[in-house]
Structure formats: structure tokens, C-alpha cells
């Protein structure tokens, strides 16, 4: 068995807002229908909440910039779900992911929808 990450590209909306309830319901319906094969996944807050992290070399000091990594050369290719105390810890962990020195790691908070 192989696990896959499905990365969803679309409008940069704040999905917590009530006007997106229909879309959220569609995703809920999809998740229920495909429940047998889904192992994990997450909806993300808008790009305005993102921080990009890089280091000059492995073990280096994290350099951070506001927002997503916008250049078109690299596209989002995968994600880890990290549970950290705060952004500082998340940045420290992200700086040890190989993509941090061979690309860029974007740290973005995940929406926790109420059950």
C-alpha cells in the first residue's frame, strides 16, 4: 500500500468564513465517500498566514520571510504535519527538512474544524 498526499490548489480563501460552508460540506461529503482510502489531510489557512524558511547550509540559522514561496520554479510537492508549541519551534523543525537547503519549506497553520 502506498499513501498519497492530495494537495489542493484553488482560491486563496479563509475557509473558516461562513460563506464557504457549501464548499466545506462538499469536502466533507468527499471525505465520507472516500473514507476507506483517506489516511490524513488538512485544510490550510490563507497564504497571508504563511512563513517561508530557508538555511544557507545544513545546520544553519533559519532565514524567514513573510508569506508563501511564490516563485514558479518550485511547486508544492508534499507536506508533513507537525505539532509544535509555536511558530518558533515549527521554524526550527522545518529548517531540518532537506527541502530547506534544497528549495524552501512553507510553514502554514492548519485549521482545526470543530467535530
Amino acid at each position, binding site marked *: 500500500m502506498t499513501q498519497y498526499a492530495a494537495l489542493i490548489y484553488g482560491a486563496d480563501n479563509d475557509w473558516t468564513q461562513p460563506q464557504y460552508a457549501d464548499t466545506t460540506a462538499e469536502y466533507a461529503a468527499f471525505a465520507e465517500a472516500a473514507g476507506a482510502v483517506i489516511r490524513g489531510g488538512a485544510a490550510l489557512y490563507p497564504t497571508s*498566514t504563511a512563513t517561508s524558511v530557508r538555511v544557507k547550509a545544513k545546520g544553519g540559522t533559519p532565514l524567514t520571510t513573510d508569506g508563501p514561496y511564490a516563485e514558479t520554479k518550485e511547486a508544492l510537492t508534499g507536506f508533513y504535519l507537525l505539532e509544535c508549541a509555536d511558530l518558533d519551534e515549527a521554524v526550527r523543525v522545518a529548517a531540518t527538512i532537506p527541502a530547506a537547503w534544497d528549495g524552501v519549506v512553507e510553514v502554514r497553520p492548519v485549521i482545526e*474544524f470543530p467535530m
Partner: protein
Amino acid sequence: MSTVPSGASSLAPEDAHRALAEIVRVAGRDVLATLARWTGNLALAEDAVQDASLRALQTWPRDGIPDSPVAWLRTTARRRAVDLIRREAARRPKEALALGPLTDAVLPEEDPGPEVVEDDLLRLVFTCCHPSLAPETRVALALRTLCGLSTEEVARALLVSEPTMAKRLTRARQKIRVAGIPYRVPSAQDLPERWDTVLATTYLVFNEGYAATAGPELTRPALVAEALRLTRLLQRLRPQDPGSTGLLALILLQDSRRAARTDAAGGAVLLADQDRTRWDHTAIAEAVPLVGEGLRLSPAHPDPYVVQSAIAACHALAPSWDETDWAAIESWYEVLLRVDDGPVVRLNHAVAVAEARGPQQGLDLVDAIEGLREYPLWHATRAALLRRLDRTDEAAAADDLARNLPLNAVQRDLLDR
């Protein structure tokens, strides 16, 4: 609570109102710092403090200024915060449950002591100047939360529309909350670099006011005053830090020339031509001992802001451009190149060398600098040195290049002369 506005009763109404607004603003900032920690939500804390501040401005002129304005504002703002949390919890009970402790309408009842408030302010400084926020966002947040300006005042100070600024601040607060930008003083390991970001943000506030890159005016004094207020706060919070001491000295020294930097028509006046009697000698007298203090705090590896303030002090203490100790300035620039090398520092070093040893030595250094072809002052400096060497055609060509690069209107006017 006293029955008359203490201290304000003998003032003219508009002065009394200004004095009151200042008390509310300073106390409000302290209250915000503590409330941000209690609620873990900067946006909510700001709303609550703003509400309490408005109430203070309405009721204090009638009822008198309370004995402890901070305690009054904190009690009122805390009550307001609890109301806001309860209202939100009633409106969206599921979300409130999911967000957990954020919406626990249980806030400490006891007022923190002054030391705790100072710690809270320092935490707030690090939150507002977090490196994951864009520099212009840090500047706006610092003005809004650490200087206590209203959103409208921040927008005006930074020359953007109020809706644009409101949106930028809202996004910043949302990022702080949902991305988990921490509200605490960084670990000892991270602290030096994070403090550099704090100082750089403060210097950016100053520079935006002192050498505005946008707008018709050369300086915006209100922004300079806010930068000074912020730097004094940083120096008070970390008195043993050479950087904040150096930055305070540097800002005082640079700003001491403000009145002499523009002529009656609003045009820029170069340092060489400034009327030095119009410099603010009170500011210079405050700054010079700070330079010494900064050097004492960073003897082995001088802090870059301290070195820059030492250079500014050489100018401030010189009776005229010709009587300036250029050899001293040249050697300070050599120290600065050692601790903070960069093309603009090299350019300034070259100018000092030109004055200390002659235009050809200066020009050789200017021409050796890489990476300043888009910087108008590099071309303008070359033009001035070429002219002194009677190479007028090359000087005119360099002047043209300088003029075709972006500058604010007053600086352009200076190049045109």
C-alpha cells in the same frame, strides 16, 4: 479617584485634552501588553484596550483622572475582553469549544506588578517584530501596538490609505494568532538575532520619517518622534544592551540636524552647508554620553549602531564641515566595515577618505564598490569627486545617472541644483 482632573485642571482645554490623551496612550500600551498575554489574542486585546481608552477619554474629564490610570484602564479593558469572549462564545459555540483556553472567560483578577508589565512589553516587542512578519508589517504593528497610534494615524504616518492599513494590520494579527507567533522573550540562543530584528524595525520607523522615500517632504517629524519613543522604550527594557543604547544615540544625533536640513523653501541642505547653530544641542548633549556608554557595553566587538552613533557624534561636535575631524571619522568607518561591511558603508567610508586624504583616494574607493549602480547617491558622490578633480564631462554624466534613479522630491531637487 480624585474629583478634578489632577494636574490637568490648570491647563487650557486643548492642552488638557492632549495631556489626557498622552496618559491614556502610554497607560493603554502597558495594559495592551498584559492583556495580550492574558487572552493570547492580540486583536481581541487591542479591541478591549481601544474601548477602555475611549471610555477614559469620555469619563476622565468629568470624573477626574484616577489615581492609577493603568489600573483603571486594565480593569475596564479586562471587563471588555471578557464581554467580547463571552459574546463570541455565544455566537459560535462549536468554534469556541474547539479553540479551548482562548475562549475561557477566566482572566486573572489581580493586577500584575510593574516588573511583570515590563516583561509583558518586552514580549509584545518580540511578537510585533517577529522575523516571520514582513518588515513593513513589523513597522505598522510597532506603531499601532508599541507606540499606541490609531490605525488611521499609522496609515497617515506611512502614507497608505486607512482601509489598506486596516487590512494589513488585521492580517498581521490573524497570522500572529493562527500561525502561533509566540508571545515571549526568545531563548538565549535566538535572542541576539531576534533583538537585531527589533532594532532594525525601529530604525526603519525612524528612517521612514527621517529620509522618507515617498511623498513630497524630506522628513516626517511625527514618525521620527515615534521612533524615538520606541527606542527609549527598548533601551529602558534592556538597559545593558549596546544596540538599543547606540540606536538611541544615533537617532538623537541624526534627528538633531532636522531644523537645519531644509531651507525656508523646504529644499534639502547638505551637511556641509548646514547652519550648525540650528542643530538641536539638547539632543546632542543627551546623545554623546550614550555613545560612550554604548562603547563601554560592547568593547571588544563594537555594536554597529554604536559605531554609527560615534561617527554621527564626530559630525555633531565639529564646529564646521572644514573643521571636522575626518581622520577620526575615517577610522570609525574602518571599525564599521569590520563589524558591518556593506556597499553603503563602503561609500560613506570613501567620502570620509576623500575629505581626510583627497578626492582621488576617495574616488578610487568609490569606483571599487560593487552593487551600487542603482543607488543614486553612488553616482552623485562620483559626480562630486569628479568635479573636484576637474573631470567635468564625466561629472555631468554621473549626475545624469543619479537623477534618473528614484528619490523623493526634495532629494531630487538637491541633485538638480
